[in-house]
């Protein structure tokens, strides 16, 4: 068994040796996923995103770059992350066998670092000396501050002031790592406003600054690039599933904020028609209350932050304030590739309320001794519903995108406990 794993761990992380999809070729060269995606940015940002796209295409085909990335993923991030058979939970639910992709075990505690390691290497290759990022839950901010510290790059993280409060622990982590955290006071003071402010910084400092976007949003090439860096999740999961069970899974489940952990898991399975893909959005207080963050389930197409996608917007096109107990899902847009997968029915999108997410949180904690992030808890909560409807020899892979340490304050507060 050990030998087999060693063999796998070497194979798994070779980005170059794994052709991800045969038939599926999205996006086109200008970043379109059908009507979605694209490059909707102010003129000052066109030259840098074009330069980024060129660099990205070049280094993706550069064996030296890939080797460095592979080494970082293995020795710094700690990949491959396990695919863990949650036997007790599966038995308790009495349906499908549940496997957890353990992104919570990555360095810094979430999938976010897969992407920041990749983008930081690109930044270095492009000669940029300053890194900026937006963050909601603070996981992407921490993952960015981490790689910036390691490479000795200046780092500024934009974070809505509401999120600064509810994710205070991560703010402190970023500061320890040497990043400057800027609390954004405009608009709804959450993730979308942090993104606006990061874009404003980038327009002002384009010459020396690399903007590490934390999810599959933004203008092309970000949605494709972030997907490709996160696709390590699905590539590993596929091989691990084959190695452990001898077959492909029947369903994939992942939470969707911007959609990076979900697309990272889904992408390598897109051509495998038998594998269902289910993205779980945040229904907040409930879709019917309007207080939610579920653009795919209850929004409409529009343009925000550089791409066309499903959005939460009113009839006048103004962006509606979102709500979710989890800061990382509290975003009115979603990656354009998810919009495309929804319209083409290749993936299915559902929504889970705050209360249901808490049930998912407790279920995993109590049944398996794993405390999930509130974002990931949405995927767990949907698994609670899905697994019992499936057969005992069916297989679900759930993306455990991050660990719950950062959410201890929110949870304690919610349950009326003083820490």
């Amino acid at each position, binding site marked *: 068994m050990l030998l087999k794993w060693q063999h796998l761990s070497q194979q798994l992380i070779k980005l170059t040796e794994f052709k991800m999809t045969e038939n599926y070729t999205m996006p086109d060269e200008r970043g379109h996923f059908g009507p979605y995606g694209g490059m909707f940015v102010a003129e000052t940002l066109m030259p840098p995103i074009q330069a980024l796209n060129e660099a990205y295409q070049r280094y993706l085909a550069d064996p030296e770059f890939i080797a460095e990335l592979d080494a970082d993923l293995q020795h710094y991030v700690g990949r491959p992350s396990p695919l863990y058979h949650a036997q007790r939970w599966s038995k308790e639910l009495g349906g499908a066998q549940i496997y957890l992709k353990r992104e919570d075990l990555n360095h810094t505690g979430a999938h976010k670092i897969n992407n920041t390691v990749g983008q930081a290497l690109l930044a270095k290759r492009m000669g940029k000396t300053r890194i900026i990022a937006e963050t909601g839950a603070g996981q992407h901010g921490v993952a960015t501050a981490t790689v910036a510290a390691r490479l000795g790059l200046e780092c500024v993280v934009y974070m809505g002031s509401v999120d600064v409060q509810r994710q205070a622990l991560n703010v402190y982590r970023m500061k320890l790592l040497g990043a400057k955290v800027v609390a954004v006071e405009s608009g709804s003071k959450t993730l979308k406003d942090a993104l606006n402010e990061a874009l404003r910084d980038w327009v002002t400092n*384009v010459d020396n600054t690399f903007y590490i976007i934390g999810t599959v949003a933004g203008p092309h090439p970000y949605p494709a690039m972030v997907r490709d860096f996160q696709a390590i999740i699905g590539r590993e999961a596929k091989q691990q599933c084959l190695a452990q069970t001898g077959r492909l899974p029947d369903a994939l489940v992942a939470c969707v904020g911007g959609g990076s952990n979900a697309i990272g898991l889904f992408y390598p399975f897109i051509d495998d028609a038998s594998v269902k893909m289910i993205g779980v959005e945040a229904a907040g207080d409930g879709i019917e209350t309007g207080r939610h963050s579920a653009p795919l389930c209850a929004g409409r197409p529009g343009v925000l932050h550089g791409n066309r996608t499903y959005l939460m917007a009113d009839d006048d096109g103004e962006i509606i304030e979102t709500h979710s107990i989890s800061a990382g899902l509290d975003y009115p847009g979603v990656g354009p590739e998810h919009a495309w997968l929804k319209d083409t029915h290749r993936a299915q999108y559902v929504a889970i309320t705050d209360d249901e997410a808490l049930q998912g949180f407790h279920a995993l904690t109590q049944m398996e001794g794993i405390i999930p992030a509130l974002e990931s808890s949405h995927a767990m909560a949907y698994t609670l519903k899905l697994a019992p409807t499936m057969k005992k020899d069916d297989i679900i892979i759930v993306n455990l995108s991050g660990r719950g340490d950062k959410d201890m304050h929110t949870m304690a507060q919610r349950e009326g406990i003083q820490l």
Partner: protein
Amino acid sequence: MSRLAAKFAQLAQAKRKALIPFVTVGDPHPEFTLPLLHAMVEAGADILELGVPFSDPMADGPVIQRASERALAHKMSLRKVLAIASEFRKTDTQTPLVLMGYLNPIEMMGYETFANAAQQAGIDGVLTVDLPPEEAENCVVLLKERGIDQIFLLAPNSSDERIQKMGRVGSGYLYYVSLKGVTGAGHLNTDDVATKLAQIRNNTSLPVGVGFGVKDAQTAKTVSQIADGVVVGSALIAQIEDNLHDLATAKLKIVELLSSMRHAMDS
């Protein structure tokens, strides 16, 4: 010839440069804007840029962001901006009107509905900050069919190739953003602007307006010596913000600032 092209031709004949004020429509409340537009024309404005407020103005600095927030607090919208433009057209059939804003309100309305509504409201140009020529094909055609110019931004880092593209796809005029940054930021470096304008003129024959960093009569004059048009926005909106409790004074200050710019540009 579009009203914008005619205006620039007429100004060129008179050897004058266009003074182009920008205000956010509905700031600080919907009734304030219409009389202000007429007053700005009287003070010497040649073309008016009407800012359409948006919840997420990514390319704007704090001054215009707050103007958007004040207008949105009164439920200002693209539809209502067009209604105010229609009102303006009832008594002023000459001054070109340019809508400036972000794409999502247009997306929600639908491109064709928007193009029709803009035509009916007497709009002459549309400048959408987050719509580069690569994504604009559909919109440009619909507007052109209705005699409306699509105006594009140029930046300090725009290449020859991009300038040519804007010149081909755009019409009316091009808007050169004189610095890398958001609206209302920093100081304008005249030498840099002059160098860039030379490059722009080598690549397109469209008139060029310059904005970002025009604050007073002196900067307006300097810019007018090298550009075809001078765009001033944040400096005007700052007058509103400084006089929120005395809007008559706000209007007076805006008129004074524009008059001083007009005077400096013409002398």
